[in-house]
């Protein structure tokens, strides 16, 4: 995919999403900027709790109460989503931006057949469906079968009437993708589509997403914490840590030459066959709790290279063409 300067499909600026809790406000997303260009696949990596899901839940307008978007703008195809009314947002969801949930095992309603779950999104958005009641039903059914076939479910006609528990994990994930793609959205947000799956199934699913992306020319956001997945499938990557983006850039560059110490640590802590016998070097410590964080580099307490000067608010810095990282060292190197 070219890096042509097309206008971004999705552009998020200064997004802050917070959850008031008894112990204080959790700033789950704290000043995230990002953009997704048409046709591109953006990988989002980061540790559990780093705000990946909340960021995109904010984009979808699905932050669970008591959470709320404090600040920021979310522009999708030229429209500011934060300004849309609830019905307008509903119209948009599922039709223009679709999403698959982190856990395929719990994201499908156990009490409804998969056929119904696919059909209802078609009914809700009715993209070019015939008007008559009966004809419409038929069209929806045909479309559902087509979607199931597209995601590789064998004999879809007979399986429309099955319930989610009658499918394997991989198939459920595929059904969720079928639901997400039913209205041919412009943007697919795939939130950890493979964490619950086995490697061989994971490969199948990721391949499927890649194929469909190519076919439909849609943009994909692939949320994961597996750098391997990103390496294989994404054009660009965005690394998150504690509610902030710490590094972005073209995948190959970020992986071969990580600039942020967290990205470096992450890469180092992946066990590799080639490293047998050597010690892996895990990043010590834990991700900080996102309450009342001091105004300093969020990675400070775990950073092996920390300096006193890190105890200040650190902004994103350019780390090369189309690359940025949130570390004061990056600036130094550039200078």
């Amino acid at each position, binding site marked *: 995919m070219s890096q042509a300067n097309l206008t971004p499909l999705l552009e998020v600026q200064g997004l802050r999403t917070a959850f008031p809790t008894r112990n204080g406000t959790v700033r789950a997303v704290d000043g995230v900027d990002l953009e997704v260009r048409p046709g591109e696949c953006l990988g989002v990596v980061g*540790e*559990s709790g780093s705000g990946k899901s909340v960021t995109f839940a904010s984009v979808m307008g699905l932050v669970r109460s008591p959470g709320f978007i404090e600040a920021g703008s979310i522009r999708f195809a030229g429209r500011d989503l934060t300004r849309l009314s609830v019905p307008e947002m509903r119209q948009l969801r599922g039709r223009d931006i679709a999403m698959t949930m982190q856990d395929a095992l719990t994201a499908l309603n156990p009490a409804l057949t998969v056929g119904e779950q696919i059909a209802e999104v078609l009914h809700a958005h009715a993209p070019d469906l015939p008007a008559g009641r009966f004809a419409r039903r038929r069209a929806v059914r045909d479309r559902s079968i087509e979607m199931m076939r597209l995601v590789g479910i*064998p004999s879809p006609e007979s399986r429309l009437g099955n319930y989610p528990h009658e499918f*394997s*994990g*991989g*198939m459920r994930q595929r059904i969720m993708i079928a639901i997400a793609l039913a209205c041919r959205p412009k943007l697919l947000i795939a939130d950890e589509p493979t964490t619950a*799956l*086995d*490697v*061989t*199934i*994971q*490969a*199948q699913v*990721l*391949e499927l997403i*890649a194929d469909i992306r190519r076919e439909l020319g849609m943009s994909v956001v692939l949320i994961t*914490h*597996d*750098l*391997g*997945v990103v*390496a*294989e*499938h994404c054009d660009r990557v965005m690394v998150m840590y504690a509610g902030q983006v710490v590094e972005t850039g073209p*995948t*190959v560059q970020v*992986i*071969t030459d990580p600039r942020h110490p967290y990205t470096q*640590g*992450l*890469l180092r*802590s*992946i*066990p*590799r*066959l080639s*490293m*047998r016998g050597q*010690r*892996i*070097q*895990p*990043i*010590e410590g*834990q*991700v900080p709790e996102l309450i009342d964080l001091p105004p300093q580099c969020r990675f400070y307490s775990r950073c092996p290279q920390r300096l006193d000067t890190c105890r200040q608010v650190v902004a994103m810095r350019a780390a090369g063409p189309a690359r940025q990282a949130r570390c004061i060292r990056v600036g130094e190197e550039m200078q």
Partner: protein
Amino acid sequence: MSRQSPADPLVRVDSLVKHYDTRRGLVGRLTGRPGVLVQALNDVSFTVRRGETLGLIGESGCGKSTLGRAVLRLHEPTAGRVTFDGTDVTGLGHADLKAMRQRMQIVFQDPYASLNPRRTVAEIVGLSLKLHGLTRDRRELRDRVAAIIENVGLKTTHLDRYPHQFSGGQRQRIGIARALILNPDFIVCDEPVSALDVSIQAQIIQLLADLKREMGLTYLFISHDISVIGYVSDRVAVMYLGEIVEMGPVEAVLERPRHPYTQSLLSAVPQVDKPGPRTHVRLKGDLPSPLNPPPGCKFHTRCPLATDVCRTAAPETRTVGDGHTVSCHLVTDDVRLAS
């Protein structure tokens, strides 16, 4: 099986079978409706030598956890034998089994579900000492708990906290401490890192490796993450649908896999170090149901190389290298699949 090590194997599993009887209710039992047996383990045999880590990989539902639990007799095996340090564990009575449990422990996959949310760390970790009557003295109990807690990288100030106050990595450390406090010889690690963050996962793997070295532990290490298995194990067993299809030293199995399933598994692992699209050995379909496993070679439904013989006859286990065994009809000579 040749005796290479001076000592006998610590754990020896012979033809272990485990079927879950999901026939429900009286009528079912009376009429003996067939076809509702989950054949989770089918004739599994292996040994684990003292001080060794045997890695166990395979897809979800292939019977890894069942194997781990059956070895500890947390689930009663349907048939077969487990010998631990010369004692037949499968035949032990209640009291003997309890004594044996001091020497065999388990660390669970889910650090959230495996700790009782209403117990403090001290209670959780000290429980087994109390249960086995190893100490009556409260001070001593606490000291021992504190010692082990520090061993796994937590602090004594954590003793009176509840599990929910810890992060996943810390919880897994508590689970490890609980397993370690009885000073076991053998630990089944049932996917101890699957639920953890990338960076934390590394911490735990490292911890387990260090403990093994310090305490001379023996592990049965279950995971579906091949990189992790590759990193921690001395030998590897690959399971498919209740059977071990390939087993051998880690280098042999992971670098020169002989079974088509192992090969496809390996090629499916996304590699950070080689960014960009790759080609895989693509498997069709999903894992067949253990309720109703296919005849012949169980892998034939998904195997890209399956032949007629695969569909009818179960393959024998062949030795293809030093301690490297494979169950596949096709592996007569050194057939290697293109990746």
